[in-house]
C-alpha cells in the first residue's frame, strides 16, 4: 500500500508540475486518510505542502431515498478556495463511480476548480457511470457481488486490502 501511494504521489507531481495550484481532497471515511498520506508523501519528496481537504458525500448520494435509513453525515472540511485549483480527489476503492459523481457534485458547490482528477487505491471495475481514475494503485478484477474492503491504520487499526468473494450458491 505504501509503494502504491508513493507511486501515485509521483504521478500526481509529474502530471501537474505547478504544485502551487494543486490540492488534495479525500472522500470520507477512508479516502481522507489516504489523501493525508499522499500529502505527506509529496511533502517528503518535493518539500511542498499541498492543501488538504476532506469531503463527505452523504448528502449527495443518489440512493438516499432508497437505502431505508439515514447514513451518518460527517463534516466536510475544505479549508481553501477551490476556484481555479487542480483538485485530486482520493478514494479507497473505485467501483460503480457513483461516489465519485457525488463527490464532484459536492466539490463544485465550493466553487469552480480548474480540473478535478481522481486517485484511487483500488480500481475493481464495474463502472455504472462514465468515470475513470487518473491514478490507480492497483487494478483488481472482481465479480460484481464481491466486496473489496480497504482497512487503514487511521480508521481500522491496520493496513490491508481484503477481497471478499461473493458466496456462491451451492
Amino acid at each position, binding site marked *: 500500500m505504501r509503494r502504491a501511494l508513493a507511486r501515485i504521489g509521483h504521478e500526481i507531481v509529474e502530471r501537474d508540475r505547478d504544485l502551487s495550484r494543486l490540492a488534495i481532497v479525500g472522500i470520507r471515511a477512508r479516502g481522507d486518510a489516504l489523501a493525508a498520506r499522499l500529502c505527506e508523501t509529496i511533502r517528503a519528496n518535493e518539500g511542498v505542502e499541498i492543501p488538504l481537504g476532506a469531503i463527505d458525500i*452523504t448528502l*449527495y448520494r443518489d440512493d438516499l431515498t432508497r437505502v431505508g*435509513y*439515514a*447514513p451518518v*453525515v460527517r463534516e*466536510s472540511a475544505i479549508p481553501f478556495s477551490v476556484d481555479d485549483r487542480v483538485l485530486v480527489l482520493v478514494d479507497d476503492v473505485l467501483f460503480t463511480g457513483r461516489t465519485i459523481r457525488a463527490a464532484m457534485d459536492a466539490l463544485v458547490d*465550493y*466553487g469552480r476548480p480548474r480540473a478535478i482528477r481522481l486517485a484511487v487505491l483500488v480500481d475493481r471495475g464495474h463502472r455504472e457511470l462514465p468515470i475513470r481514475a487518473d491514478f490507480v494503485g492497483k487494478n483488481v478484477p472482481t465479480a460484481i457481488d464481491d466486496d473489496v474492503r480497504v482497512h487503514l491504520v487511521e480508521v481500522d487499526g491496520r493496513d490491508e486490502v481484503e477481497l471478499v468473494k461473493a458466496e456462491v450458491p451451492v
Partner: protein
Amino acid sequence: MNPQWSRRHVLDTDDWSRAEIETVLDQSRAMVEVLSRPIRRAPALRGRTVILFFAEASTRTRVSFELAAKALSADVTNITATGSSLEKGESLYDTARTLEALGGDVLVMRHASSGAPYFVARRTSAAVINAGDGTHAHPSQGLLDAFTLREALGDLEGKRIAIVGDILHSRVARSDIHTLVPLGARITLSGPPTLVPAAWRCGQPPSGVTYEPDVDRALDGADAAIVLRLQRERQQAGLLPSLREYSRVWGIDVGRMGRMRAGAPVMHPGPMNEGVEIDAAVAHGSRSLIEKQVTNGVAVRMALLYLLAAGSAALLEDRA
C-alpha cells in the same frame, strides 16, 4: 461516535437519551459546514416534500425551517393560519386528514395548543416535527441552544446554566431543560413566582433543575444565561405588577452579567423585548450568542429534517 437515532417524529426531547441528543448535535455540525459553502444547498432531500404548518404566528422559526429544508433541496409547502381553513373553523382533525392526503414526507408544525403535534402525529403517516406547541415544547430550539452552548463552552458536563424569566409559559425553557440536563448541565430557573410552575418551586422540579427566586443569586458563577421573552399579556393577566418592575427585578443588564463566570455568554430565543427582559447593551454585546443561535438554528433543523426524511427510521454508520 456511536450514532443513535430511530425516531419517527420529533415531538419532545423529554425522553431522549444523551446519545440521541449528541447524534443530532454531531449531524448539525456537518450541516453548519454545508451552510458555509458558496452554494448552500445539498441535494439530499430532492423529491421530498416538507410541509410547514404554522397555526400560530411565527416568522423566525418558520423561515429557519424553510431555509433548512431548501438547503437540503426539499420541496417546501407553507400552510399558515391565515392561509388555511383553520380560520374558517376547520378542526385540527380535518386539517390532519388533509395534510395526510397531501402526502408530505415531513410535517413541521406549530400550534397554540400544547400536545397538538401528538394529535396530528397519531393521524398522519408523515414524520412530524414539533416547531412549538402551546406552552409545552420547542425541541429544535432546545437542540440549537445546546448546540450553541457546546460551541461556546465545550462539554456541558457540570456547567450551570441560568434560565431567567417566564418559565411557566415557556416551551423554550422546557425543551432547554430536556436537552441540556441529559448533556450533564445543571439548570437554575429564576423568575417571578407567578411565572414558575408551583410544583417546580415547591419541591418537585425536574431532575437537574433548581429554582432560585433571587435572580442575582441564580446568576452568581453561572456558566451561561438564557433569557426568556416576557409576553406583555402576562401583566394584563394579573401575573405581574408592571413591566417596569419586571425589568428592574428580573431584567438582565451589564451589571447582572458581571455576576456570572468571566466571559459567560447570554442567549435569548427571540424575539427580544429590549429594555424589558434584556438590556440592549447585553443583547448586542460581545457575550451575546443570540445571532449565533439564529444561524445554528438552520443547521440543527437541517439535521432533524435529514434524519427524519432521508431514512425511514434509523441513522446508521455506512461504509459506502
